[in-house]
């Protein structure tokens, strides 16, 4: 009897340390942040001394044009970055999915950017974008093109390009893996059925890769909302607010404006947004699993 109870408890006992760490490392700070977001809180105060103001921080933020602008920058950054990365990453994967000599070297080269620390990426691109001595403008000058004011008037575009350079490889390797696990004979059947290269891509390859592509896109989207280092190093959010993504604004609100409560509320807005994407990703994978199960049972009933 006691043994049976002990046996039943064993798995929970094994999980307990992990649960404790999760609670301390994850839930506690999260709760702290939510709690803090309801207060008018200066960094010199402890959280207990700060005055409780209810939803005031959230309401203020909602009407704050700077916050809205920052949110807009974040949304358009995430949108453009993910769209371009998906197109280029998937395109490259489709192009390089063949067995030619030297292809594996090429593939390794393509994923290098992903392995460089973000701060280094930021510094690299800042130098390359430099208005007079930067690589781009020097090249443009050499071939007789007008100079571009990279980190000035075109700052948002410039940081988007840098992010695309860094993160396209992520989409590329995942798409390549998906491509190489496609059923080979179905593609051969399509060739015999008369599909050209393009038609194979449109009618067979892309539809079969779609589940992987959706999850990959969502993962990238979640990540794109959280970028900080590269932009911090390249532009510090400027000029003006043109590249001030939310993560950057949160950190400035906390350190420069010394408004921890507002910063916490802003974090929570971001959290809600991310939660939405995460949940939709899980919902999607869950739906996929259920569909697979349904298919399997349908077949078994038939037999």
């Amino acid at each position: 009897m006691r043994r049976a109870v002990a046996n039943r408890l064993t798995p929970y006992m094994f999980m307990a340390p992990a649960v404790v760490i999760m609670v301390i490392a994850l839930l506690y700070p999260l709760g702290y942040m939510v709690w803090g977001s309801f207060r008018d809180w200066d960094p010199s105060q402890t959280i207990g001394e700060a005055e409780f103001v209810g939803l005031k921080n959230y309401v203020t933020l909602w009407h704050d044009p700077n916050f809205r602008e920052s949110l807009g920058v974040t949304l358009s950054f995430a949108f453009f970055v993910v769209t371009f990365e998906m197109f280029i990453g998937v395109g490259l994967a489709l192009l390089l999915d063949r067995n030619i000599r030297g292809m594996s070297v090429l593939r390794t080269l393509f994923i290098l950017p992903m392995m460089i620390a973000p701060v280094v990426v930021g510094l690299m691109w800042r130098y390359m974008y430099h208005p007079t001595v930067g690589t781009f403008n020097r090249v443009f000058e050499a071939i007789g093109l007008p100079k571009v004011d990279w980190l000035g008037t075109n700052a948002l575009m410039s940081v988007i390009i840098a992010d695309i350079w860094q993160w396209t490889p992520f989409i590329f390797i995942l798409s390549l893996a998906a491509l190489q696990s496609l059923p080979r004979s179905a593609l051969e059947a399509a060739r015999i059925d008369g599909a050209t290269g393009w038609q194979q891509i449109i009618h067979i390859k892309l539809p079969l890769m779609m589940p992987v592509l959706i999850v990959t896109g969502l993962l990238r989207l979640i990540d794109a909302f959280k970028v900080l280092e590269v932009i911090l190093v390249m532009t510090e959010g400027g000029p003006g607010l043109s590249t001030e993504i939310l993560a950057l604004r949160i950190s400035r609100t906390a350190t420069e404006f010394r408004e921890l409560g507002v910063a916490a509320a802003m974090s929570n807005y971001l959290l809600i947004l991310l939660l939405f994407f995460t949940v939709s990703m899980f919902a999607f994978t869950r739906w996929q699993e259920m569909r697979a199960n349904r298919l399997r049972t349908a077949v078994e009933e038939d037999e």
Partner: protein
Amino acid sequence: MPTIHLENLIKRYGDVEVLHGIELEMADNEFTVLVGPSGCGKSTTLRMIAGLEDVTEGEIYIGGKPVSRLEPKDRDLAMVFQDYALYPHMNVARNMSFALRLQKRPQAEIDQKVKAVAATLGLTDYLARKPGELSGGQRQRVAMGRALTRDAGTFLFDEPLSNLDAKLRGQMRAELALMSQRVQKNMIYVTHDQIEAMTLADRIVVMHGGYIQQQGTPEELFKRPVNKFVAGFLGMPPMNFLDGEIVERNAGVFVSGDGFDLRLGDEKAAVAKAHSNKEVILGVRPSDLVFDADASEQESLTLDVMVSEYVGAQSVLLCRCGPAKVMVEVNSETPVALGQRLTFAVNPNGMHLFDRQDEVAI
């Protein structure tokens, strides 16, 4: 329909040559079966015809036109794969109509065609289902239907029945035979199952180790195998092989070995005479041995029964003849006890002789 001709077809993967000059001429509307043990190059040959593998040397002619540089889609053929290779994200109707849709045929024509083919294959109720929602046999039919809807000149099959259970396989085999009579196209069919080969083929091509061993009608191959491999490969239960020697005596030409001493029929004797005293292998099919207690010694084998396998109307006896094992097919009514010593008359036309050195028929 265009005739297909393979001319000295060679395939190498790197330094390894897997096909060593395949020479094959298929007649119009012929059902050709490539058969052979695993790894003999049947699939490679078929895939080269389909255009899925490059031709290393030699040429493939379809309707007199060299096609080895053409894309699969320009060769006017349809193929059924062993794993069916259905498009998992399309329903049955869309699977079957894929080729027609790529050709931009009018929708009405496509619908009508799919409907007609689905009806002949009993797939009408499943048109809206995805391949994942079908059983193995149904998927097999869809694969077949996809090829039929195409209306191509040549049909290629790579072991289309090998993933089905025995009963379904028999059923589909019969349906295939019916279909091949009805549609009148060139068919090239790969299998390692000699029963499929015998029942379906107009012409059987037996392959082994990247070479064609023999080709001809099922009857030709069964009655006059050119070597020991073909003899042993076709026929179930397989042919018995006994080591012996050709001996010429006053009474005639004999093949004699441990436990037997058989007189050859006149026709066989005339040929065998030239090989007097040569070491040979005697091949006798289990069905060419007839239980006959009164048969004389020079036209019969005396065997010790070891095992009897009851398979219904027929039983297969596993017997011993000297050091060799011999299988015999008998009527199940024959009274046989294990350990018994029985005499079986040998059908004189059923004796095959092979040179023991190169295993070529004498």
